[in-house]
């Protein structure tokens, strides 16, 4: 069967913050650039970001990129690469000011500068006291960012392919990336994008968990495509959980609710945070609160028929305060928990929020893999940025507002690297003869299989397994069982059946293809988490507890290293050292992480 081939200099998969930022670099350099997206660009998940983007502009008080770098290294629990972190923090001002020039309507101070507000973990003078570093556009930062960058791309003649789903990465016999296969949803037609540069900006995969703050679109397609093409996935055991997502729905209830006096209670109405954090109580840090909640649930003090959530109680607050100080919270609670929080407490659970790991890249946005003795060799023609990539700046734990910064900085540098690599106008490498084979056979299998697994049920089984076995608080035996369970789910995911066999607008088929990506991410997460026998950042194990030798359970002697998971090589895991050498300053030395 002959498959249409579209030739471009570059294809970018993803039109969220990272993809749009990369596209600007390529199109403005005069390269013929295609951007693929499952949805209209401004409906990408970046639209949900409200908190802001970090940059040490120092508009409201003194600040410095070096302080920001220190906070990021510390936040990462020293698993972040210090060269990449220095690069990101130094570039922050430049990319934020550029965004301003693209027309981003940042909040302003009285004298017209970008207004900055404080955000958790961002401090001045190497961890001394909170600093105002976050730049926002009211409560629509992500939305405004996407609009500004989309307009800029339209001007630069970027070609958008909207409601197109990339299916697989195409690599030639030398391993170089020469494009992707993609399906136009409207026609069901599979097409080859033949390119000299391919950039992944596909966002996160938070939907591997049952409870997730992420929109349904976060199915980890970039990670699935990379994994199937033999690219390892880095540090997939690290996921950030937010303590208060609405049980069942996942929708985020902001920290502000506890700030206004909200109290967490278990099945006997006890204010259990008093036992875990006698001073800070319900206002303790995200990870402490999440773990306390998980412990209450595990020990049988959860609420409801399944004893699987706790309650966030604001019934003692003045209704006027709730309406005035917590806009939107009552509405979320009524819509998704079916309770009016003025009268009844809100059911909440620790909820998956952000993926720290991803496709391994260096700080120039080039995808790097181990080869021979070298642990970070660039894959020719392949780049990645944003939540799907692991540069690694977030290490074991991300600081709020650093991911919008990540996607600006590394979206841009991936674009710049591609422009640099394409200079001199080298020809397209040849497509392998079987370029579309893998994708076509996956689609054929779905179209022809009878009596296979149901997609919805398989996804639910995966999400339950991830939530129960690799949640916010991890146990050695549960992780072991989790590995066998997720491998069982994987078998089902390889044998899925869809009832609708139509070519045109077949959303069931698209969902099945997404599920094939989700399972790659889930498996990588479970196996990497089982293997890492320490606690670090967001990865907290019951059997790696806080001791004088290993404060917080972190074991730098054995585990100061990145995980690389190779699904195509029998689920093999290897490790590579953390880069402790910044570009220009001294190493930020190992220390116990405490706030």
């Amino acid at each position: 069967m002959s498959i249409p081939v579209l030739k471009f200099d570059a294809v970018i998969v993803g039109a969220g913050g990272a993809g749009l930022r990369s596209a600007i670099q390529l199109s403005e350099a005069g390269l013929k650039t295609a951007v693929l997206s499952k949805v209209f660009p401004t409906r990408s998940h970046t639209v949900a970001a409200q908190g802001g983007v970090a940059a040490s502009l120092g508009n409201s008080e003194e600040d410095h990129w070096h302080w920001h770098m220190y906070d990021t290294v510390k936040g990462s629990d020293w698993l972040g690469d210090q060269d990449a972190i220095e690069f990101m923090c130094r570039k922050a001002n430049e990319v934020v000011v550029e965004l301003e020039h693209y027309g981003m309507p940042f909040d302003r101070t009285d004298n017209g500068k970008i207004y900055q507000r404080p955000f958790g973990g961002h401090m001045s003078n190497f961890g001394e006291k909170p600093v105002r570093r976050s730049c926002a556009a009211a409560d629509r930062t992500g939305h405004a960012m996407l609009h500004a960058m989309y307009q800029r791309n339209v001007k630069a003649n970027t070609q958008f392919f909207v409601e197109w789903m990339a299916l697989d990465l195409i690599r030639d016999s030398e391993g170089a990336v020469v494009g992707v296969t993609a399906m136009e949803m409207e026609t069901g037609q599979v097409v080859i994008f033949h390119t000299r540069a391919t950039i992944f900006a596909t966002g996160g995969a938070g939907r591997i968990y049952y409870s997730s703050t992420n929109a349904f679109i976060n199915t980890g397609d970039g990670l699935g495509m990379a994994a199937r093409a033999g690219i390892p996935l880095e540090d997939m055991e690290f996921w950030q959980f937010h303590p208060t997502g609405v049980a069942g729905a996942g929708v985020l209830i902001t920290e502000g609710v506890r700030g206004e006096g909200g109290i967490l209670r278990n099945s006997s109405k006890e204010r259990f945070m008093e036992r875990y954090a006698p001073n800070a109580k319900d206002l303790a840090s995200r990870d402490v609160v999440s773990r306390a909640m998980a412990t209450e649930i595990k020990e049988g003090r959860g609420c409801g028929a399944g004893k699987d959530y706790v309650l966030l109680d604001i019934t003692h607050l003045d209704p006027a305060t709730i309406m005035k100080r917590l806009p939107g919270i009552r509405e979320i609670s009524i819509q998704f928990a079916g309770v009016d929080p003025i009268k009844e407490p809100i059911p909440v659970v620790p909820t998956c929020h952000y993926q720290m790991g991803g496709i391994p890249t260096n700080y120039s946005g080039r995808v790097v893999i181990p080869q021979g003795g070298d642990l970070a060799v660039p894959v020719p023609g392949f780049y990645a940025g944003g939540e799907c990539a692991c540069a690694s700046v977030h290490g074991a734990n991300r600081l709020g507002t650093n991911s919008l910064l990540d996607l600006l900085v590394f979206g841009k540098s991936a674009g710049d690297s591609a422009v640099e690599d394409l200079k001199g106008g080298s020809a397209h490498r040849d497509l392998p003869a079987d370029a579309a084979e893998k994708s076509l056979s996956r689609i054929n299998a779905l179209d022809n299989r009878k009596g296979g697994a149901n997609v919805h049920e398989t996804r639910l089984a995966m999400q339950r397994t991830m939530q129960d076995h690799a949640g916010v608080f991890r146990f050695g035996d549960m992780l072991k069982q989790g590995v066998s369970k997720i491998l069982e789910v994987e078998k089902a995911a390889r044998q899925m059946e869809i009832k609708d066999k139509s070519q045109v607008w077949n959303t069931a088929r698209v969902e099945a293809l997404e599920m094939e990506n989700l399972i790659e991410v889930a498996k990588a997460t479970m196996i990497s988490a089982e293997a890492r026998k320490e606690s670090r950042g967001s990865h907290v194990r019951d059997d790696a507890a806080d001791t004088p030798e290993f404060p917080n359970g972190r074991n730098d002697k054995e585990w100061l290293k990145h995980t690389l998971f190779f699904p195509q090589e029998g689920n093999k895991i290897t490790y590579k050292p953390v880069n402790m050498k910044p570009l220009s300053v001294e190493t930020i030395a190992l220390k116990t992480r405490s706030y």
Partner: protein
Amino acid sequence: MLREDYERLRWRCIRRGLLEVDLALTRFLDQGFAGLDDEEQQAFAELADMEDHDLWHLISGQAECDDPRLAPIVAMLRKS
């Protein structure tokens, strides 16, 4: 609604930028949509074309809808 049009609309309801909107529209597609007449279905499709934040403000009652064609659908989205 033709199968093709429904499937396109379905995709635009189940893959949104905001989880709140994903949940609200998916729920409505499963529960209320089939009971709408052609014109009402068209009105729902128009709502689904809105930007996520604006639509969520309507659904959650933080904003009001003053278009007489769309308002009844918004009311159903709120109740469902």
